[in-house]
């Protein structure tokens, strides 16, 4: 028996990392929002690795923060170790990563949700999306038959749809961590014409800390100076004692065990049909595909301060339980390992994300949005980023405002969403720095300068934060100009300083900026010959230093962005019939029809669409737009 429950503006299905950001954004923008979860205790659950951030993912978290999302703040509250990766490389690829206390992370996020006005939490499985005949969302239905009328739905079902956990011949029809799976929503989506995919991912075993011999491993400590994820925090505010991770390696014996039992792996026996991510290969995949590699790294990471469970990073597997025991125990330090939870692979339903608009709304279902692993991505951070954008855009739609679409040249979030809806996603999509073509501009250190104003415009950033960014911009600009103008002569003091820093002494006068550009020098090192320097905050100095040092490269990327923007700004009408365009190759017609790009720029990134096709398309659009304009004139 079904009955009608309360009415909401926005319904969010799933309370993982995508769902939390989506629901918070929507509620904070004053929309009456409800978030459904299959289990209240699984809010913001981290069913796989116990960390947030990492290369390019750390960028995403800082961007989420700059836009007014929650992930950065939550990890700053609950981390137990923090590290800036890639410090020996350029500033564009410095990436922040923090180990989380999983339970803390989850309950802290739950607290935020529970105390956000306009947001209701509900434990229930959604089985059906209700729409009008012309596919406009009008509500959802729970397993128990309650109908929640609403204007927009955001699906963030993660890995729960028809989930199946597998190791060896053992199969559990559950979601991650033994949680109940969602068994009905796929059918409802299919009946709405949604194209579904089946993807696979996996997780390693958890081992009892007491059974590990850490003396055989290398200790991996956190950084001494901690950079917070959230721009609202200062390093000193979040200092705390950190917990170590540990490094060990697989052995030839490990590889022998895997090879001897490979036929029992469901990946190789064909029992697993879902497509896995190449980025997160199981240990059996690594051993088979990189057979000449003698050993693989294994990181032992704490799941939190609340437990003895340790996450065995680098050894995810779907081998049978008995093989797992033997395999893990062949690793130095793990000889006596007590396995608390087995490694397993998980298969789940997700969508072909080519069905989405850049706003993350379905092209063919009005008011239906989606985010996270349901969209074919992998990773907590990728999920949260999409959740935030889907939440914002569901709100924008109901508030009758333009959707927020972030460009590839603006943020990793833009790259992530554009890739998902433009490329043939045939495996779980993971963010990577190599995917961002303008990465010199998209640094983790300047995410606030890139996005805070946008967050303010959306309504998720308060006045005070906004004002701070305006001031920061001003300080950076002024200091840069001062350094460009300040002339330094070849006096004794200068020459001595340069010599002491192994830098060539001056032959003619130069500017402070020129000196900063020298590879061996930087802003801080020139302090003694720059007496007029004002006291500036560390983040302003960082920007000044990077902007001066890498100016040549940055200017070049800015020029590329200018070219790129020209094509992005040429919009393609939604209703365009590509079959009518003579001169387009058949492959291009098919691809364009299936992806329905919103701009010429997006069209040019679809594989199988050539530059000549783009020219032809531009010519056609010119005529099309003129015709439309003429018709409008007539009808008025």
């Amino acid at each position, binding site marked *: 028996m079904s009955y009608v429950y309360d009415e909401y503006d926005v319904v969010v299905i799933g309370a993982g990392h995508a769902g939390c950001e989506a629901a918070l954004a929507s509620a904070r923008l004053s929309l009456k929002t409800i978030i459904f979860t299959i289990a209240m205790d699984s809010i913001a659950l981290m069913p796989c690795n116990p960390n947030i951030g990492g*290369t390019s993912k750390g960028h995403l978290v800082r961007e989420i923060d700059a836009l007014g999302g929650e992930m950065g703040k939550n990890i700053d509250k609950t981390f137990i170790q923090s590290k800036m990766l890639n410090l*020996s490389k350029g500033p564009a690829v410095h990436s922040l990563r923090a180990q989380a206390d999983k339970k803390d992370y989850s309950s802290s996020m739950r607290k935020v949700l529970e105390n956000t006005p306009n947001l209701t939490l509900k434990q229930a499985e959604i089985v059906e999306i209700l729409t009008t005949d012309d596919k406009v969302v009008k509500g959802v239905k729970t397993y128990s038959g309650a109908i929640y009328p609403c204007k927009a739905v955001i699906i963030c079902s993660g890995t729960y749809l028809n989930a199946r956990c597998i190791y060896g011949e053992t199969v559990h029809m559950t979601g991650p961590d033994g949680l109940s799976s969602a068994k009905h929503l796929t059918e409802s989506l299919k009946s709405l014409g949604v194209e579904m995919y089946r993807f696979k991912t996996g997780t390693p075993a958890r081992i009892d800390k007491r059974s590990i011999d850490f003396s055989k491993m290398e200790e991996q400590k956190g950084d001494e100076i901690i950079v917070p994820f959230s721009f609202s925090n200062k390093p000193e505010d979040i200092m705390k004692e950190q917990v170590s991770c540990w490094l060990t390696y697989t052995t030839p014996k490990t590889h022998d065990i895997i090879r001897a039992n490979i036929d029992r792996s469901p990946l190789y026996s064909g029992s697993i049909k879902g497509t896995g991510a190449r980025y997160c290969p199981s240990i059996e995949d690594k051993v088979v595909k990189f057979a000449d590699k003698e050993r693989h790294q294994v990181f032992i990471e704490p799941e939190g301060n609340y437990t003895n469970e340790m996450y065995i990073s680098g050894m995810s597997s779907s081998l049978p339980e008995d093989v797992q025991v033997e395999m893990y125990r062949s690793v130095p330090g793990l000889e006596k390992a007590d396995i608390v939870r087995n490694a397993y692979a998980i298969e789940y339903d997700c969508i072909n994300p080519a069905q989405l608009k850049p706003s993350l709304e379905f092209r063919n279902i009005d008011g239906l949005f989606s985010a996270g692993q349901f969209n074919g991505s992998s990773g907590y951070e990728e999920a949260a980023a999409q959740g935030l954008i889907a939440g914002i855009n569901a709100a924008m739609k109901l508030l009758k405002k333009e959707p927020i679409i972030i460009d590839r040249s603006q943020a990793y979030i833009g790259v992530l969403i554009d890739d998902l809806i433009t*490329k043939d996603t045939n495996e779980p999509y993971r963010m990577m720095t*190599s995917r961002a073509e303008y990465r010199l501009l998209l640094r983790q250190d300047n995410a606030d300068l890139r996005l805070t104003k946008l967050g303010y415009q959306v309504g998720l950033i308060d006045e005070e934060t906004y004002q701070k960014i305006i001031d920061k911009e001003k300080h950076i600009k002024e200091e840069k100009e001062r350094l460009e103008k300040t002339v330094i002569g070849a006096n004794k003091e200068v020459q001595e300083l340069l010599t002491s820093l192994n830098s060539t002494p001056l032959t003619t006068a130069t500017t402070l900026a020129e000196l900063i550009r020298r590879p061996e020098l930087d802003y801080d090192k020139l302090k003694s010959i720059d007496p007029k320097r004002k006291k500036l905050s560390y983040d302003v100095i960082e920007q000044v230093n990077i902007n001066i040092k890498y100016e040549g490269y940055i200017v070049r990327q800015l020029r590329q962005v200018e070219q790129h923007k020209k094509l992005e700004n040429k919009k393609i009408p939604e209703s365009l019939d590509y079959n009518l365009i003579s001169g387009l190759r058949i492959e291009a017609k098919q691809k364009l029809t299936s992806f329905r790009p919103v701009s010429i720029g997006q069209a040019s990134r679809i594989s199988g669409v050539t530059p000549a096709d783009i020219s032809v398309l531009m010519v*056609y659009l*010119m005529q099309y737009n003129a015709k439309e304009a003429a018709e409008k004139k007539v009808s008025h």
Partner: protein
Amino acid sequence: MKSDTITAIATGLSSGGISIIRISGNDAFSIIDRIYKSKNGKKKLSNEKSHTIHYGFIVDGDEIVDEVMVTIMRAPSTYTREDVIEINCHGGLVVTRKILKIVLGQGVRLAEPGEFTKRAFLNGRIDLSQAEAVSDIIKAKNDIALKNSLKQLEGREYEIIKKIRDSILRDIAYIEAALDDPEHISIEGFSEELEENLQNYSQSINRLISGSKNGRLIKEGIKTVILGKPNVGKSSLLNILVREDRAIVTDIAGTTRDTLEETINLNDITLNIIDTAGIRTTDDEVEKIGVDKAMKVAKEADLIIYVIDSSVPLDDNDEAILLMIKEKKAIILMNKSDLTPCIRKEDIEKKSNHPIIGTSFVEHEGIENLEQLIKDMFFKGDISFNEDIYVTNERHIEAFSNALKALDMVRESIYNNMPEDFYSIDLMTAYEELGGILGENVGEDLINMIFSEFCMGK
């Protein structure tokens, strides 16, 4: 719309006379000011009135390259609705090509196939109702360009480019894998290895460029092939044509042991003559190979001159050749008319529709007829040489040069001690430029290479 400045040769190249090099875009005037010199050396074209023609010289530094007429036209009353400069020069490949090179050296880009038309349309110069026609032009020109690009690369060159490209991609993938997974993959010390690689890439590309310039890639002119059995007088014909022609442009060493190539001018028509002399012997097996080779060369020819010894009866070889050239533009010479003929003109006419001329190379008879016939065929448009080949070649050279520039930037980054992530930016540019020649996009190449070569991830 703000666009970069483009250039191309706007006229056909083959018919001598005048060639026009067109420049369109914002920088057109500043560029012509740098390379144009008036008679008194004082005129600056950017100060002159629009839609005027000016006599003067194109200069390369201090050196005068050619005497020209330059038409200047300011936007918007031009074909593309942008500033347009047209340099009218003394035709002929050598000069035209040199001027184009000077223009390209000013930071102008070679126009894409159909780009002037595209700009004209997008800037509202061509009526909107013509969209379909414009699209068709762009598509057709691009199809031809891509086909030519690939056709023109010899197997060996194609392989070299592919190899360099693969290797560059591997370098990028290594760097990127290490950036994305620093805890598993280290690139410490890689810059030294990379420097060595860069050296090799640049050397290979430089060799490809000089190959292009020397005509290994480009064989401009009407590709004319002389076919015939041994001792029919093919070499004599070539010698006569070369000797009689007053202006040998270049002589290019044969691409294979068995063919000899000469470029000659026949009243402003450039002929690129390939003699297939010596390709046959009496040994049956080798003879077969010879015929195959001749067939291959002939297939790509714009014009075939088939020499028959009229004092010797036709045999199977002649039959095979006549069959092969049936669909080609060809002229048949019945040589050795000074000897007692045993083949009649009618015998050949039965087997072929091609024009037939009686010649005696020994007596220099019929040569004038032959030259006249070629001229007639050319001006009637029966034969034409494929000038896309020339354009394609310029495009290749431009892409090679851009790739070289990018590789130099990488070297500079290494020299300046920049972090490794800066290397991949310019490496990628080089990869893209070389891909353009092969008609290949970047797509997911990098991501695929990263995953196939490096063991990544948790």
